[in-house]
């Protein structure tokens, strides 16, 4: 079977608007978990990128050419990430990719993009390995787990002056990476954790684990993971009468954290590390307002995705739509985005880590700790 035949079959199978092979546009992939258990994040990625692309197109596009987005679903499975990455660079002819979400998908996919000379900007994969691979085309507009862990650990030691820290993670690339980073900084400060254990993603009953936290008499519980587990965890912690301070990372940044915890009173006092608030940037305010006006709350990674798209656009439009040159260009130029000015180092990480500590209040809102 020739390539053309297969392509024809694909197209004939496709629904009406599937003409993804349009020539004149600049094709950019938005890769992430659009189905499967992490689909909520995939939606954030898509909304952010979609809005950014629409805004850029409205302002004249890239060098007069319109951005055309392709939704690429990896369901956070490495296997599918490889397939979809090959599809993006090959069939869709994408010049750049915003994504992926899960680090375990981003890592194998990044190699395919590197070989094809495609620019990859991830809004969410925080695992250090991704940029430590030394690929020239990989960037991220979020922080690294080790930066985030540092902020949390120094806060625990310097501000909370805690001695008994329990470290919990969700055995996933993101959660465990974050917990490990926090733990190693904590140990460097001379504080040894009293407990280090993993829970299983998808479970909701953590009572056994919490009774154990109670038994080691922890005064701080650090959790590396997402809000889907953090909610029940903090609720059951409080139900068992523990007063330990609960700290987590940017995986719990979502209003759903309150609703899965069962009541705002359970999240009261929960601390988390997250990038400096986008609303503190003037350009961010406008975008957030437009999102809200359209009936969508831009939470979690939405604005990161918007930022990633802006970085991609800047790299492409300043280099005659050449992603390889764009990758080099990004390392020496800064980009103005809705989340402020972004500079990248040689690895593709942000030069400035903007993690700060936030606290949830009894109304179920979070604000920066001063």
């Amino acid at each position: 079977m020739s390539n053309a035949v297969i392509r024809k079959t694909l197209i004939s199978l496709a629904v009406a608007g599937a003409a993804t092979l349009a020539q004149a546009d600049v094709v950019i992939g938005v890769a992430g978990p659009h189905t499967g258990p992490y689909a909520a994040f995939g939606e954030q990625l898509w909304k952010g990128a979609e809005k950014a692309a629409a805004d850029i197109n409205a302002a004249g596009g890239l060098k007069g050419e319109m951005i055309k987005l392709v939704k690429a679903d990896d369901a956070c499975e490495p296997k599918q990430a490889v397939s979809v990455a090959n599809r993006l660079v090959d069939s869709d002819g994408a010049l750049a990719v915003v994504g992926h979400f899960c680090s375990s998908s981003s890592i194998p996919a990044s190699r395919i993009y590197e070989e094809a000379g495609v620019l990859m900007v991830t809004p969410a994969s925080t695992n250090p390995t991704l940029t430590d691979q030394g690929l020239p085309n990989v960037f991220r507009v979020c922080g690294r787990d080790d930066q985030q862990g540092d902020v949390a650990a120094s806060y625990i030691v310097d501000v909370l002056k805690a001695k008994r820290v329990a470290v919990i993670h969700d055995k996933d690339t993101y959660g465990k990476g974050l917990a490990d980073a926090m733990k190693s900084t904590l140990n460097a400060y001379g504080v040894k954790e009293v407990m280090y254990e993993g829970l299983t993603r998808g479970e909701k009953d953590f009572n056994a684990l919490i009774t154990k936290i109670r038994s080691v008499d922890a005064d701080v519980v650090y959790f590396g993971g997402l809000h889907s587990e953090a909610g029940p965890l903090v609720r059951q912690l409080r139900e068992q009468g523990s007063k330990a301070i609960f700290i987590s990372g940017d995986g719990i940044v979502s209003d759903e954290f309150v609703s899965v915890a069962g009541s705002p009173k359970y999240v009261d006092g929960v601390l988390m590390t997250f990038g400096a608030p986008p609303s503190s940037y003037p350009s961010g305010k406008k975008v957030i307002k437009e999102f809200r006006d359209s009936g969508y709350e831009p939470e979690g990674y939405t604005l990161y995705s918007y930022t990633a798209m802006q970085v991609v656009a800047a790299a492409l439009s300043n280099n005659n739509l050449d992603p390889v040159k764009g990758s080099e260009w990004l390392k020496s130029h800064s980009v103005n985005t809705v989340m402020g000015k972004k500079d990248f180092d040689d690895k593709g990480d942000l030069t400035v880590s903007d993690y700060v500590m936030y606290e949830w209040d009894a109304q179920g809102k979070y604000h920066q700790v001063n």
Partner: protein
Amino acid sequence: MDIVLQQLVNGLTLGSVYGLIAIGYTMVYGIIGMINFAHGDVYMVSAYITAIAIALLTFFGIESFPIIIIGTLFLTVAVTGAYGWVIERIAYRPLRNSSRLSVLISAIGMSLILQNYVQLSQGANQQGVPTLLTGAIRFTVGDGFVQITYMKLLILFISLLGMGVLTYVIQKTKLGRMCRATQQDRKMASILGIDTDKVISTVFVIGAMMAALAGVLVTLDYGAFDFYVGFIIGIKAFTAAVLGGIGSLPGAMLGGLILGLSEALFAGLISSDYKDVFSFSLLVLILIIRPSGLLGKPEVEKV
């Protein structure tokens, strides 16, 4: 000491939930010998209906906890029962005379359908229900305390009640007799004038209803769920059903309790990283000693 006792309480409540869901597996297996992989997702559907029922009831201004919980139970059990019936009708009945593996694959397909159908209609985000019942009974033990929340007491009470009613139905009523007859010999039962298709449908409805019972209680207790929540709890409940001897009602409850206790004790006293490894190893060990599970009838080898 207080810690060990608390872990026992944790394990018992977790186990009773596993037991309730395991009933659905065990009944379906008993009657048509199939592993209903979509059962965990039926539980997931019931969690959504619970949240919807609570949202609707509070919308109409009902505040009192007993009315909300009874209303939610009633609505959820009824609608989930309908799901059980329709799933059987669409995906399993056309395969009644085929090999059991075909039904298994159909069930896996059904499980995918349910997950994605809920995801597409309700969105992929995490959902929650508000905390309606708080507070706990605490006993002081040594320097610490052991507590059991009112919600957990309610779970234990309702699951025991559900088990009791079900056992009565199966053992004492005409419907139960028809179920048992169909279980023993479907062909013979139909010759004797039992509408076996109807009986099988009924069993699916009962299984779904028990899953709904668990769905309401667990959703109220943990508060959090998403469209993927049925998978892990489904596998655990299936394990519990096999542990207790698949096909046996008291076995399902016993298997659930053993599984819950072993998880809680292992996680609490040794390591929560390896608690699932421990549960599965325990299962293998029990099955090596008793190949038909704890309360299962040994399979008679026909010559």
